[in-house]
C-alpha cells in the first residue's frame, strides 16, 4: 500500500519576473501620481494634454499631501 506525504518547503528563490513586474508597477505609479504633467495623455492627445494636465489635476491633492513638488 502506497502512502503519500506532504511537507512544506521554504524556498529562498525569488522569481526575477515578479521583481521586474513590481519594479514596473513602482515606476509607472510613481510617475503618474508624482510627476506627470500631461506626458501620458500626450501620447494620444498631443500638445493639448499638457494644457489640460488631466492626471496632474486628478492627483493634485495627493501630490501635495505626499510631498511631491507641485505648482
Amino acid at each position, binding site marked *: 500500500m502506497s502512502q503519500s506525504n506532504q511537507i512544506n518547503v521554504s524556498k529562498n528563490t525569488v522569481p526575477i519576473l515578479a521583481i521586474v513586474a513590481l519594479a514596473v508597477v513602482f515606476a509607472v505609479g510613481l510617475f503618474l501620481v*508624482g510627476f506627470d504633467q500631461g506626458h501620458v495623455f500626450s501620447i494620444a492627445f498631443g500638445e493639448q494634454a499638457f494644457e489640460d494636465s488631466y492626471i496632474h489635476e486628478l492627483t493634485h491633492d495627493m501630490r501635495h499631501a505626499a510631498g511631491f513638488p507641485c505648482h
Partner: protein
Amino acid sequence: MKTFLFLTIVLISGALAGFVHGSSNLILVEPYLDEAIGIENQQLFASGEEDDTLEFWVEYEAYRTWQKGGQILAGVVLGTSTGALFGIVFVLSRHSLPGNNDVKKALILAGIMWVIIYFIPFLKYPANPPTVGEAETVVLRGILYLSFIAISGFAAVGFYKLSKIFKGKKKLVALIGYAVFISAVFVAMPENPDEITAPMDLVNGFRIMSLIAVSTYWIAIGLILGLLWYHFKPNKEVTSFN
C-alpha cells in the same frame, strides 16, 4: 516561491494601505489644502483673473469634489506603486530582518523605509500646500526631490551591503557611514528654489498633517503585508513525496 500569490499579496497590501493614506489625507490634510486654495482664489479675484461670482463658486465646488475623489484614487495608485517597492525589498531582505514573525519583520522594514526614502527627504524638501511653489520650477523641484530619495535609498543599500563585511558591534560603522554620507548630501543638495509667501501657520500645519498621513501609509503597508504573508506564506511550497 508562489509567484502569483506573492504578487497578489504585495499589490493588495499596497492598494489597501494607499486607500488608508488617501482617507487619512481627506481627514487630516484636506482642510489645509482648502485653506491654501482659498488664498489662491482671493489672489485670482484681486488680480482680476477671475470674478467672485456664484458661477465661479459652483464650478469651483464641483472641481474640488472631483479632486477630492482623485485623492482616494491617487492614494490607491501611489500606495500600490510604493507597495511594489516595499514588496521587492521585503522579499529580498526578509531573512535578514529582525523579528520572530513576518508581521514584525514587515513593520520593522516599513519603519526603516519610512526613515530612508520618506522622512530624511522630507526634512530636506518638506511638503508644501498650494500657493507655495512656482510652475516654472516644478521640474527642477521634482528632479531634486527624486534625486535625494534615490541617493538616500541606494546609499542605505550600499552601506547595508558594507555592514555584512563587519561582525558584531563593528556593523555600527555602516550605520554611522550612512549617517555621515546622507548628512553631507543633505548639506550639498540645493535648497527648494521657491520662496514661501503663504502664512507659516498654514504651511507648518499642512506639513505636520502630511507627515502623519504618510506615516499611516507606512504603518498600514507593514501591518497588512506582514499579516497576509504570515497567513498565506507565499514563500512556502508544498512538496509531495511517496
